[in-house]
């Protein structure tokens, strides 16, 4: 069986923070050394648990951003100001701090290289994280499955992984990255500048033959809009895998 698919007992592990990278003003990536990490698949997530001295615990799920080929587990976290966990992870957490996590979790929203079908990835905001794990996995595995990423952000400054995506796409003609900015855009912006719509889906969608593999991740309303536009476009719902994150308080 592939590495990362055997779950065994899902126990909590103590990892050590091995680097924090600010991706945008509200989003940071946290690289974690996890002893005896069993490996993961692109698209899986981990649960992170914080414990207060009085015993109170708060737990959230975060998608893994790093490729399975990476030695470290990296999560990318958006700080929600009224959240319980994310303001600690993005703002308080420091290098070499300990962090409690368990995983990898999930086997449904995953992609493995080599791909056998064209890949369409659609991201809303920090929904790009598990899709980035797929893009990084594809690059690390030297896989050339044609992939299109359609990525919606509020503004240019809010685009997570912007430079890495540019770099990867410049080096790989089979990786096609398309942005849309929904709230504001810089002068001379050449991408889309509106909410996801039918025209964007029609532009980005692969032909229905051979059947593409589709992964959509973002806020619930974004995911449902994107999936329903794809079905209207003629895609079979069975080709489309979605992962919603809702108003869960971060």
């Amino acid at each position, binding site marked *: *069986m592939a590495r990362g*698919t*055997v*779950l065994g*007992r*899902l126990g909590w592990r103590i990892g050590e923070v091995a680097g924090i990278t600010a991706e945008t003003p509200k989003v940071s990536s946290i690289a974690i050394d996890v002893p005896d990490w069993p490996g993961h698949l692109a698209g899986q*997530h981990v*649960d992170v648990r914080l414990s207060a001295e009085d015993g109170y615990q708060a737990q959230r*799920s975060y998608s893994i951003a790093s490729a399975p080929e990476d030695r470290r587990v990296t999560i990318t976290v958006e700080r929600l100001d009224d959240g319980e966990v994310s303001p600690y992870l993005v703002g308080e957490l420091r290098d070499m701090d300990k962090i409690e996590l*368990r*995983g990898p*979790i*999930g*086997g*449904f*929203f995953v992609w493995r290289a080599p791909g056998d079908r064209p890949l369409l990835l659609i991201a809303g905001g920090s929904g790009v994280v598990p899709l980035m794990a797929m893009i990084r996995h594809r690059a690390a595995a030297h896989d050339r499955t044609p992939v299109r990423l359609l990525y919606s952000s509020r503004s240019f400054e809010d685009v997570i992984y912007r430079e890495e995506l540019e770099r990867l796409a410049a080096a790989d003609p089979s990786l096609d990255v398309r942005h849309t900015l929904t709230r504001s855009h810089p002068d001379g912006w050449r991408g889309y500048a509106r909410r996801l719509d039918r025209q964007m889906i029609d532009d980005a969608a692969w032909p229905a033959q051979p059947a593409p593999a589709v992964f959509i991740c973002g*806020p*619930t*309303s974004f995911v*449902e809009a994107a999936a329903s536009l794809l079905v209207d476009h003629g895609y079979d719902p069975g080709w489309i*895998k*979605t*992962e*919603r*994150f*809702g*108003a*869960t308080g971060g």
Partner: protein
Amino acid sequence: MTVEQADMKLDGNAIGGLLAEIFNMEMTTAEGTCGGCGAVNAVGRVDVYVNAPGTVVRCPACGNVLMRIVHGRGRYWIDMSGIRTLELVEPA
């Protein structure tokens, strides 16, 4: 349904950890048959609400409650009366 209520809806991926605690297996690829309408869906595709006092899992086709899970005081209470069958892949 307001946008805020609509955004309370998650999917089965969000309870992969909770279900693994209970079943000790990867569960998001398990397929459940709805006891209401007979629709078959992977757990990763079902609708999940975690803001109730507990976790409520509903059929994405008909809205029937498939499963309710309450976890507290060292116990799990699991109501699966809405699921007709659950098909799991044996770990290799």
